[in-house]
């Protein structure tokens, strides 16, 4: 497959997944902000969103103050923000457009229609009581596009690069969201939270659709340690780091071509650690340190994926 094709398909899927994750994160933060229980300053919650996305600087360029309205506007409709929902949906569509011949017509049509609908929503404006419905819509479009990829695409490299983009983005997002939430919720792991913390942890779980899973797996009260375990190490939890890296690991072995050995090595090492790691060791090392290291290693793998598949040197 052409390197540029693989690049487009990968970013098509990544952009869609990013839109979904941003919607999830904003939705949960928005709901939390409606609760009186919150022990946190509102600005703190909204600035957490910016640190998860690493966009504090970009935000400060155009907005004087961190508050619900500004962060929402920035993360949903700001076309200058490279990670806003509108930018992500546009990127997904443009990447799909560049590779119309490589994806099924259903795949193209869902991304094209999503973008057309997004433009309509932009022009009409989202009413304050419609914001949750909007986030649901974004999630549904993402589910739909993933489902269509799964249900209609030939199991070849095109499909694999699409899946690779999805799981890369998801792993990155889970690591970041956990890191930031942990950080502000629990400066010290020994602190015991009250009811407010219960809602906060619940919200974090909900943002990655893990609330019900938590109940099923642990059948017990929510503790930060278990939340970390669920989102990092549980292979059966579809948005956990382990589950995402499982997929990535399998995909890089299936992608055709002999040039992927370094990618395979890097991802294989990360995979082994997640597979055989224990939460006690993660906590001992320091969760923040651990997650920072995971994010930077994901970045290194991403870089290697770039150099191997998307922008190879000409020899």
């Amino acid at each position, binding site marked *: 497959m*052409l390197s540029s094709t693989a690049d487009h398909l990968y970013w098509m899927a990544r952009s869609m997944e990013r839109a979904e994750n941003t919607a999830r994160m904003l939705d949960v933060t928005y709901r939390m902000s409606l609760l009186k229980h919150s022990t946190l300053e509102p600005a703190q919650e909204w600035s957490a969103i910016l640190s998860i996305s690493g966009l504090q600087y970009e935000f400060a360029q155009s907005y004087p103050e961190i508050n619900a309205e500004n962060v929402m506007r920035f993360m949903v409709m700001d076309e200058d923000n490279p990670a806003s929902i509108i930018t992500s949906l546009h990127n997904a569509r443009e990447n799909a*457009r560049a590779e119309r011949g490589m994806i099924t*017509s259903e795949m193209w049509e869902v991304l*094209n229609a999503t973008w057309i609908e997004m433009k309509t929503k932009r022009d009409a404006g989202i009413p304050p009581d419609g914001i949750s419905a909007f986030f649901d819509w974004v999630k549904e479009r993402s589910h739909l596009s993933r489902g269509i990829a799964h249900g209609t695409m030939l199991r070849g490299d095109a499909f694999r690069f699409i899946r690779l983009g999805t799981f890369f983005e998801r792993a990155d997002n889970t690591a970041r969201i956990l890191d930031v939430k942990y950080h502000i919720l629990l400066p010290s792991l020994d602190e015991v939270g009250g009811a407010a913390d219960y809602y906060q942890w619940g919200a974090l779980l909900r943002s990655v659709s893990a609330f019900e899973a938590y109940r099923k797996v642990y059948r017990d009260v929510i503790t930060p340690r278990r939340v970390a375990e669920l989102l990092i190490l549980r292979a059966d939890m579809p948005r956990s780091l382990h589950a995402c890296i499982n997929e990535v690991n399998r995909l890089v072995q299936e992608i*055709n071509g*002999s*040039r992927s050995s370094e990618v395979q090595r890097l991802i294989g090492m990360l995979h082994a650690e997640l597979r055989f790691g224990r939460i006690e060791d993660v906590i001992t090392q320091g969760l923040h340190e651990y997650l920072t290291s995971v994010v930077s290693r994901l970045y290194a793998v991403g870089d290697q994926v770039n150099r191997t598949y998307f922008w*190879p040197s000409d020899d």
Partner: protein
Amino acid sequence: MKLPYDEMSAADGSRRAHYEPFSRWLESTPEEIIARKREEADLTFHRVGITFAVYGEDAGAERLIPFDIVPRIIPAHEWKVLEAGLRQRVKALNAFLHDVYHDQEILKAGRIPADHVLKNELFRREMIGVNVPGNIYCHIAGVDIVRAGEGEYYVLEDNLRTPSGVSYMLEDRKMMMRLFPELFAQQAIAPVEHYPDLLLDNLRSVAPAGISDPTVVVLTPGQFNSAYFEHAFLAQQMGVELVDGNDLFVREGRVFMRTTAGPRRVDVIYRRIDDDYLDPLAFKPDSVLGVPGLFDAYRRGHVTLANAVGTGIADDKSMYIHVPEMIRFYCGEEPIIANVPTRELRKPDDLKYVLDHLSELVVKEVHGSGGYGMLVGPTASKEEIRLFREKIIAAPEKYIAQPTLALSTCPTFVESGVAPRHIDLRPFVLSGTGGVTMVPGGLTRVALKEGSLVVNSSQGGGTKDTWILEK
């Protein structure tokens, strides 16, 4: 004023025989069904995204080319003549291109003034002495044919560089078969769906010598080009890669594409990029669309470009007047399809005549295309004529003039119902080492504005399915 030739109805109002089944169907089908079908066609084209980008509008704007459901029907005996005429014409044009870049016999024989060729900016000196596989230069030609007067056909223009529109020919047919399958049962309509196969065969036939299983790619300027849809469509239909300049690189005079499994050799490039932008080392140095070193690889015979570099010298509007002479010189035959009588404004007599008759004539820029930079005298305002006159006087050699042909009309759905609109026809003619081939058909373009003679999609033209009857 006398009405132009109508494809469906004779002057006395009777139906022409080959339109009989269709017009019976049209008259007996309830209006609301037709309205619904037309809506369905629109929706489908939109959803599927068969669009083209329009230059000069907001960046990346996409627009649908209007599709009309009334087909343009050509009876078998007329197509037979057209096909023979196209074959003859394209053969002569290929022979001419080979000749002017080699021995220049036709110039030596004085059949075409040497200056017209050698001083033309479209004559590519870089191509002199370069040998191309099978001596084929225009692998894909889109020849614009119009019908006028009592129904006689004329060649209006030869498009030998990167003619577009074939995807609409194929999509229009698909749409008609989907909307009105019953019509195809009534008449034997020649199929066109195998065009991509013919094209791929044709491209593979001109691969560099010694390559048994050539790799073909389609080279596009990118997704913001007006014909990007077509580039992607053709690549997909042929099952080959669609590449842009960044996907290719040249090493040691050979062309490779960057793939996820490493570099892969490319043998034939169906390029939809103009000569000037192909290779910044050989042509426009600031081109970012092309591939550095591509022309060198081409000259060495390591890769085939389709169409060849330098075909512009044969389809230039100032060269058009010489095509009948090319046919006589290279084929030893009289042209089967006539040229439109054309005046060259570089000739003082012609210039004087044209300036005196501007309001009756069509004046075209020699190097213009897409319906831009032309004057249609009868429909132009006094002010437009005045401005154009100034442009002509400033540089007469840049223009040619033709009588305003009363292009034939075909019934077409417009807001007020079905009304006659002017049409033309662009068949696509393929040349390879196996000879000249074409599918029976082409793209019929229709000027949707009442009275308009400009059918270009960039100027608000639409398209129709073209039916060649098999008997």
